[in-house]
């Protein structure tokens, strides 16, 4: 099957596309909705909001998550906030400005129509969440409070202390649990999707493994929604959760779904630095901290080991404020991360040498410790628990870490992949953030997709199809189940001669990706990475020490199954990065930079979305391109100076 990329962007002026599309698409009559089965995989912001909304409309929803409770999906860890073009602050915000900021922040590598829809829906998301009782931060007047985030010059970020993701997710989770109680959502927690089932080219079901009993089960439906998040955990060390993985989207890719922009990963500038080899996970310190914290390194190498409080003002280099005076500490994430790497590469890193200071001294002097604690208390507590230092007294040490993946499965305007019936929401798709995501936009996208887009577009798909009757006895289900059993069987094979553990493979893969497909990429490194990953993959299947061979609760087996897929995806990331010879957003090719070291885009040759077609594990994938056409925005060099 060959891939046809039809983005299905509605015609008409940009600002009317979504409303006219909503009016023109087909709808399923209320009495017929219950005849349609919808599978939702993942219960983060996108998955939970979609499950709740679709069940409320009357569809039969089956929802799956790998966590022990849907409330634990990794959206919960988002700290800073959610953007919305409400213009409550009267500072000139508008739907257009949010749209423009997002396109520019993404370095002109996202689709205009999708981003505009996101900006249009943003205000409604806040109202939706308020109606659910989400305790957003408020002013003394009782009105909703806003703060600023990177890459924008207005305050449009709504927040709930440093736990915005948690509060929004709990809101969506509660709405979904209400539907579970009503019997309209059938919930399967601790269940992992291991394959997508296609019948006559349409997505008609999935194969799952019960992580408690090990049971492999077939589930049939009329359409499948993947909301399984990003694949940033491929770096081994990232801010992603332990269970975050690529298996669902990767398996869908192997069944024919195009994978877009896999090399677009976001390295978040403010994370707690790595402290040693034992480290299993990196912890993010919200971008909101850059509202009041100032980033600096010592100017002289001899000062890097000194107590920071003894370093005089004139000996400090507030390098973001120096290089980007108009945005200062609030430049977008890709730029802040790269600047930190440059400073450390120049030998000015503090602590272990891979860290810079994020200093609240001036904010505390200006506003008092109490105000600072009110805004960031929980983040400061988290920092001192991990690092054993008091950020009220000495500056935080931070360093960039992998945080988010802009790449994902290709989807059209209706959020459907090139496989009919396979919808992809949230971080799992590629659609809205281009080559770099702005802070506080992930929550906005996840909820927009789940609450306000899919409930409309899924109806259009279901109403326009004639469905043949398919149950789980169909040969395609049997074949998929056999595939899954074979994978589990191969992983559980008791290989007594094997010497290398899952974690060792995972670390090696992560390090390879970090070194060569990380903050800075070049042709030689990427080619090396491809060979390394291929070799590692071959070794993995021959020399894996699995530990427990239990087919029931077996966390190491779960991890091994994820690593097996990461070992395939890693190669595609390197290939995509190798293909894209320009620098844009989070993708920095050393060969393409301006004389002052800024990323240099090549719009003439690379103004497209890459969409890779899978051809086999050890075969070269085929590149398809969806050209990016800007009708409403004048493409410019992205500058935050």
């Amino acid at each position: 099957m060959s891939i046809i990329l039809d983005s299905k962007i509605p015609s008409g002026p940009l600002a009317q596309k979504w409303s006219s599309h909503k009016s023109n698409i087909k709808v399923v009559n209320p009495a017929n909705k219950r005849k349609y089965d919808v599978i939702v995989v993942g219960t983060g912001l996108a998955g939970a909001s979609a499950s709740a909304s679709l069940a409320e409309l009357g569809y039969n929803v089956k929802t799956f998550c790998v966590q022990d409770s849907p409330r634990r999906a990794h959206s919960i860890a988002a700290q800073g906030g959610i953007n919305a073009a409400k213009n409550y602050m009267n500072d000139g915000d508008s739907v257009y400005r949010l749209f423009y900021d997002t396109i520019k922040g993404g370095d002109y590598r996202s689709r205009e129509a999708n981003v505009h829809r996101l900006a249009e829906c943003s205000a409604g998301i806040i109202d939706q969440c308020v109606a659910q009782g989400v305790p957003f931060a408020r002013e003394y007047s009782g009105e909703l409070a806003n703060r600023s985030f990177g890459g924008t010059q207005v305050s449009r970020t709504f927040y709930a202390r440093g736990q915005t993701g948690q509060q929004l997710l709990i809101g969506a989770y509660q709405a979904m649990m209400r539907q579970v109680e009503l019997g309209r959502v059938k919930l399967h927690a601790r269940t992992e999707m291991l394959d997508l089932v296609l019948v006559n080219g349409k997505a008609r079901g999935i194969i799952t493994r019960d992580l408690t009993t090990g049971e492999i089960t077939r589930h049939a439906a009329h359409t499948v929604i993947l909301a399984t998040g990003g694949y940033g955990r491929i770096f081994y060390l990232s801010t992603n959760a332990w269970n975050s993985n690529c298996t669902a989207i990767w398996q869908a890719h192997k069944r024919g779904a195009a994978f877009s922009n896999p090399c677009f990963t976001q390295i978040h500038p403010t994370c707690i630095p790595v402290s040693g080899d034992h480290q299993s996970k990196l912890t993010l310190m919200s971008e909101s901290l850059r509202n009041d914290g100032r980033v600096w390194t010592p100017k002289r190498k001899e000062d890097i080991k000194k107590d920071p409080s003894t370093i005089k003002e004139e000996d400090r280099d507030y390098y973001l404020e120096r290089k980007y005076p108009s945005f200062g500490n609030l430049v977008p994430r890709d730029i802040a991360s790269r600047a930190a790497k440059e400073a450390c590469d120049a030998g000015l890193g503090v602590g272990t040498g891979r860290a810079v200071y994020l200093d609240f001294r001036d904010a505390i002097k200006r506003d008092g410790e109490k105000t600072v604690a009110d805004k960031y208390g929980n983040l400061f507590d988290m920092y001192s628990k991990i690092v054993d230092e008091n950020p009220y007294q000495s500056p935080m040490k931070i360093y960039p870490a992998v945080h988010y993946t802009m790449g994902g499965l290709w989807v059209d305007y209706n959020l459907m992949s090139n496989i009919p019936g396979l919808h992809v929401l949230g971080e799992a798709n590629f659609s809205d953030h281009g080559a770099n995501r702005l802070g506080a936009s992930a929550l906005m996208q996840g909820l927009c997709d789940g609450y306000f887009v899919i409930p409309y577009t899924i109806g259009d798909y279901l109403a326009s199809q004639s469905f043949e009757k398919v149950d789980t006895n169909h040969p395609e289900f049997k074949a998929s189940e056999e595939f899954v059993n074979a994978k589990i069987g191969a992983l559980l094979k008791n290989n007594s001669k094997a010497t290398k553990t899952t974690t060792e493979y995972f670390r090696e893969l992560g390090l390879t990706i970090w070194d060569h497909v990380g903050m800075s990429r070049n042709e030689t490194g990427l080619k090396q990475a491809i060979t390394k990953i291929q070799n590692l993959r071959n070794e993995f299947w021959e020399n894996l020490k699995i530990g427990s061979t239990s087919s029931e609760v077996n966390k190491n087996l779960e991890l091994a199954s994820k690593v097996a897929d990461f070992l395939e995806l890693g190669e595609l990331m390197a290939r995509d990065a190798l293909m894209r010879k320009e620098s844009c957003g989070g993708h920095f090719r050393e060969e393409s930079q301006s004389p002052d070291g800024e990323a240099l885009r090549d719009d003439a040759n690379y103004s497209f979305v890459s969409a890779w077609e899978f051809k086999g594990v050890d075969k070269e994938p085929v590149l398809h391109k969806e050209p990016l056409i800007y009708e409403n925005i004048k493409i410019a060099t992205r500058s935050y100076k």
Partner: protein
Amino acid sequence: MSTHEQSMTLNLKVWKQKGPKDSGHFEMVTAKNIIKEMSFLEMLDVVNEDLIKLGKEPIEFDSDCREGICGTCGIVINGQAHGPWKATTTCQLHMRAFNDGDTVILEPWRAKAFPVLKDLVVDRSSFDRIIASGGYTSAKTGPHPDGNAMLIPKPIADRAFDAAACIGCGACVAACPNASASLFTGAKITHLMMTPQGQAERERRVVSMVDRMDQEGFGSCTNIGECRAACPKDISLDSIAIMKREYMNAFLKSDIEQREVREDA
């Protein structure tokens, strides 16, 4: 600057249980090459790597975000839920809390309503069912009044948030001598009764959630307050008092509700 001190060796007395029906027992496991910078779960990662290399069964435990917000992890460490630190989840507990040569006892959350699935992994779906019974506002997806249409004074919003900060980890149940889920349930009731949006279903919510909590097999609150001490998010005991008061009010008002039902019929 953190300097890696000498590594420690700890003696772990770990609960091993094959499945929900197995009776379970303690096993001694040595944790070698542990440094103070490690989190408690990273210490277990090191132990499990060693066990796997020796061809032995690793210790099964739950974890996900490893930054104290998802509520997945939870081990009773030396008789204390989430270990010795206050307002801390197991993943945020660091090994500087322990000394070389210490014996550390690791047990799962123990409660009839949290059956052990394996070793330190428990099933907390009873919490989800409590939420499903009423822990929400029935706001439909769709257009709603503007977010600022209803003002919420900052102190009220802050108190709602304090209660809503619950991560559903279950430490309150694990630490409670009665295995009661009152702090968890009270936190959700408090969060929603504080907000204007939660008013419409206020009485129905508290009755149904409290009843569900009892049906799930949790114990009853005798106000020992250990839940509060074990809670990684510092949820206040006031939320239990609020839950009780709300229940009482709902009970007193129930004849009004019944009358409404009769009028409908």
